Structures are given as structure tokens and as C-alpha cells.
């Protein structure tokens, strides 16, 4: 069904495929930039990916003005403010985010600070409050999950309050997203699985949240089918370039879907355990996805029924009576979780993720204060959040 009103925006140029990273200097020059600051992390540097990016500048007019290598897994306001200082000090004119969600989100947040010429990111909190074009920004994801390369949101931790703060603005969308199969080849199995399920969660929630629209739906279902066909191969055989590239595309599609349709209760819960217990975002989404779907089953069960086709394929879809499809879709996600758990030890309970039982109340409280609750098709209060967290604690 087409909503009575919707907005859709995705102006990101996608540069994808073999040796795509070598186009980075050219793309920067097209944007009028010659001195990029690269924001990345130790893992990316250690895997040799930064060197691939550096090599791309050979014989080019654009030069690497500075590289920030120390982005932590949960980037914070302090890190953003520090990197913004380095940007100014090194007279940079553009930003490249190279890494997973944290590095790319940090790069986005740095772009806010250096463009608005403030000293502290906190002063610019909000949704759609930025008023001017940001500095040229290119994203190169090295994980296949966050979709941050095509989203209008940057999530940065406020370490003092133990919460994750979202900044949303259309200006935060990168000018260019570069998907190069080389960038995800070295990703370890467990991270491949967690980030892949992160993308799956983006797609499933985008398809069922109150901002869904025909364009986001098309992206979401395409993403789910790609993940269904490729995630286990990418986890078990990391060197499979085709599976890696398919997952990178799935992540981008899911990112474009949720950037325009938003996400719901699963993300709120994952942000809750992420902020309070430092559970990685992809792991939190993996754990909560089937429980969040069950929670919404009475409200949007018909939509889950439709998703059974991309989730489980034609045979399962056509052999399942219509009334059973919603519950079967939840089971398909749970099956996939079990297979990933078996393949690489991906945590699928909060207990496996190391969440202390006595932190569930704090995490549930953080979850209901998360903006994603707004977009969930069913209202979520503190008791709901706590009930789901308890159910997800040790269900195996």
C-alpha cells in the first residue's frame, strides 16, 4: 500500500566494483577537493586497507592531507571534536570515511563540526537542523552492514550520559559511496555475520516501520534476498569476492531503505544495550530482530508474511499457507541466527553477548528514549522493552 504522503531522498553517487577505490582521487577532484582527511581505525590499517587507499593517490593532484587512525568502535563526542581540530590544523578541504559504521559516522560528525565552525558537536544536536552544505565527503565502507554510506544519520556516543545520540540531516549523506570488494575481503567471520544481520535488520525494519514507502520497500526486499543468498558464504568463505560484493550491495540497499523509512523497536533495543553494555550494534540487532518481529506481529504481521519470500525463497513462501507466513518469517530469521551462531559463534542471546542481567533495566530505559521507538508500528513502553530484553536474555 502506498502511504498518503512520503519523502524519499538518496543523492549519493555509487561507485562500485573492481578497483573502485582507485577512483577516489578523481571523485574528490570532481567535488573540488584536493586535501582530504581520512577517518579510519586501527583494524582497517592493520588489514592493509588504508594502504590500498593511499596507493590510489599515486600520480594524482589530490594528496592525503591527514589520516586519523584511532577511531574507537563506539565513537564519541570527544573523538569527533578532536578529529575536527586535526582537520583544521592540517588545512584539509574534504573528508573520507574509511571503515565500519563508527569511522564513517565519526567522519560525518566531524563534517558537521568543521562546516558549522563550532568547537563542540553537542551544540548541534537534533534532526534536520543543519542549514548549509557540508564539506565534500566520500564514504568507503569496509564492513557490509551499517549502510552508513547512504544514510542521513550519524550516531555518536555521549559517554557522559551513556547513550548514543543520533544526528540526522540530508546534508550528512555522502557525495559518493565507494564499494570495492577488496575492502571487505579481510573482515573476520563473526564481524561479517554481525554486520550482515545489521543490514538484514535495516531492511526488515524499513519494510515495516511507519515511514515505509514504495521506494524504500524495493530497496529493502532486494537487500533481504541478497543477504539470504550470500551471508553464510561470506561468513564461511571470506575470500569469495562475489559473496562479499553482494553483501556490500545488500548493505547499501538496506541503508538506502532505512535512511528513508527509518527503523523501529529492534534498533531502539540494540541502541539500549549498545549504550549501556557496549554490545556491538550488529550483535544487538541480530539478537533482537526475531523478538522485535514477534512484538510487532499483531500490528504488521501481513508485512512480515510478504517478507517471507525474500527471507526464505520461493519454495518456502509458496508452500506456506498465507496465514502462517508471518510467523514463518520470524522463524526464518531465527533459523538464520542459529546457523550463523553455529558457523562463527555469533552471539544470539544477550547472555552470550556478555550483558549482565542487572543492567537490563538501564538498557530498557535507554531503549524507550531512543528515537527509533517513534517509527515502530506498535507503541513501545518501558515494560515492553524490559520484557523483550528478558526474553532475549537466554532463550536457547
Amino acid at each position, binding site marked *: 500500500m502506498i*502511504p498518503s*504522503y*512520503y*519523502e524519499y531522498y538518496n543523492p549519493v553517487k555509487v561507485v562500485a566494483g573492481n578497483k573502485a577505490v582507485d577512483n577516489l582521487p578523481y571523485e574528490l577532484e570532481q567535488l573540488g577537493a584536493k586535501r582530504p582527511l581520512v577517518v579510519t581505525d586501527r583494524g582497517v590499517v592493520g588489514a592493509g586497507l588504508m594502504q590500498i587507499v593511499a596507493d590510489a593517490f599515486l600520480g594524482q593532484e589530490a594528496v592525503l592531507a591527514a589520516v586519523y587512525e584511532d577511531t574507537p568502535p563506539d565513537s564519541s563526542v570527544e573523538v569527533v571534536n578532536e578529529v575536527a581540530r586535526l582537520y583544521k590544523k592540517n588545512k584539509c578541504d574534504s573528508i573520507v570515511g574509511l571503515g565500519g559504521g563508527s569511522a564513517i559516522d565519526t567522519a560525518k560528525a566531524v563534517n558537521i563540526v568543521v562546516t558549522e565552525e563550532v568547537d563542540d558537536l553537542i551544540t548541534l*544536536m*537534533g*534532526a*534536520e*537542523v543543519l542549514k548549509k552544505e557540508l564539506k565534500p565527503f566520500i564514504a568507503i565502507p569496509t564492513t557490509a552492514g551499517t549502510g552508513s554510506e547512504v544514510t542521513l544519520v550519524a550516531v555518536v556516543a555521549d559517554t557522559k550520559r551513556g*547513550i548514543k*545520540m*543520533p544526528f540526522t540531516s540530508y546534508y550528512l549523506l555522502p557525495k559518493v559511496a565507494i564499494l570495492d570488494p577488496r575492502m571487505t575481503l579481510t573482515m573476520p567471520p563473526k564481524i561479517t555475520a554481525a554486520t550482515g544481520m545489521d543490514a538484514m535488520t535495516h531492511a526488515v525494519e524499513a519494510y515495516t*516501520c*511507519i*515511514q515505509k514507502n514504495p521506494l524504500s520497500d524495493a530497496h529493502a526486499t532486494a537487500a533481504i534476498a541478497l543477504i539470504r543468498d550470500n551471508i553464510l558464504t561470506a561468513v564461511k568463505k571470506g575470500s569469495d569476492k562475489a559473496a562479499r560484493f553482494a553483501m556490500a550491495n545488500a548493505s547499501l540497499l538496506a541503508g538506502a531503505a532505512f535512511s528513508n523509512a*527509518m527503523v523501529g523497536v529492534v534498533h531502539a533495543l540494540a541502541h539500549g544495550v549498545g549504550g549501556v553494555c557496549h554490545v556491538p550494534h550488529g550483535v544487538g540487532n541480530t539478537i533482537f530482530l526475531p523478538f522485535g518481529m514477534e512484538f510487532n506481529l499483531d500490528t504488521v504481521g501481513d508485512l512480515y508474511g510478504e517478507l517471507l519470500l525474500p527471507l526464505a525463497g520461493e519454495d518456502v513462501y509458496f508452500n506456506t499457507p498465507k496465514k502462517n507466513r508471518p510467523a514463518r518469517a520470524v522463524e526464518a530469521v531465527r533459523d538464520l541466527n542459529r546457523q550463523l551462531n553455529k558457523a562463527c559463534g555469533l552471539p544470539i542471546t544477550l547472555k552470550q553477548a556478555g550483558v549482565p542481567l542487572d543492567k537490563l533495566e538501564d538498557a530498557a530505559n535507554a531503549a*524507550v*528514549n*531512543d*528515537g527509533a*521507538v*517513534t*517509527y515502530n508500528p*506498535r*507503541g513501545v*513502553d518501558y515494560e515492553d522493552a524490559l520484557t523483550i530484553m528478558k526474553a532475549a536474555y537466554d532463550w536457547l
Partner: protein
Amino acid sequence: MNDEMVSHRWKPRKKRGKTFMVQAGLFLLGRALEAAAVLDPDVRREVEGWKDPMTIMLHVHSEGPTMVLKKQDGVLRYAGSSPVDADLTIFFKNLESAFLVFSAQMSSPQGSAEHRVSLKGDAGQAMSLIRCMETTQAYLFPKFIAKNVLKKVPPMTLKRAGVRAAILGVGVPIGLGRFAGLVR
């Protein structure tokens, strides 16, 4: 180009009715929130968690109706309809979008989902405010309207009916914040 080729007669039409409705809706909501922060335990608990002092503004961009709330010394008060520099501001992008919400044709989350509002300030704080607004709306609207704009409509118990009567009978006409000390 000849100046005669363009016309300068087009002006936006006044929308006095809708402007009045939105301003009245903002006033009603402001006074009702002030009262709910005294009488409803859920709203009271939420407001206790807000920083103190704090200013909140609901505003129709760019020169439209406005509602200001101020929390000071633990008490939330409706503070008029003149725009201020607030700690947390929720903007409606235009009058029509605000009208959809204030005429109960659209829920606040749906308005947000359709990008009809934008936010300046802490998103977590805004979530708390929205929960308070929803709780308050459940008192203001009859059930047949409430079920269109709220994801959950609490059953109308005798106690809740009393709170509704106090909000509508005293809170909205004269403001209940000034009696916060007595009521608690």
C-alpha cells in the same frame, strides 16, 4: 525582458482559521501538559527527569504559532506564545503540517515519520516530551479520536476521569502549575 511579462499580484492567502486552531491547540496542549505534570504520575516522573531550568518550544516555521514551556524549580509551566531561544525546539515545517497534528488527523509519530517536523536539541529529551504529550492527549481527546492518534489508549478509569476533569476544568483555564506544591 519586459517588466510587463511578469505579474506581481500573487500573494499567499491568509489562513486565519487554521492559524487560530493551531494556536489554540498549542495553548490547550501547553496548559494540559502543565496540569498533567502535576496530576499524572507518568508525566510527573518524566518531567522530574528533565534538566532544571529548561525551556521547550513548539513552533510553526518560520513565523507561525508558538508554544513555550518552562520547567523551573521542579515545576512545568506554560510560558506563552512568543518565540524564545529554547533548549529543545520542535518545529513544524509549515502551518498545514501543524494543523494535521492539532486537528487530530495525524499522530505526532506519523508527523515525524512524514518529515513534517524537525528537532533542535537532545533527541532523548524529545522522546520524553513526546511520551508526555501522548499521555496528555489521552486525557484531552475522547476515545474515538484518541485511538486514531495514539498507539496505545489507556482505559478510562474513575481516577483517570477525575484527572481529566481537573485538567480540563482547572488546568486549561487557569493553569495548575502554580498549585503544584498544594496538589502534591
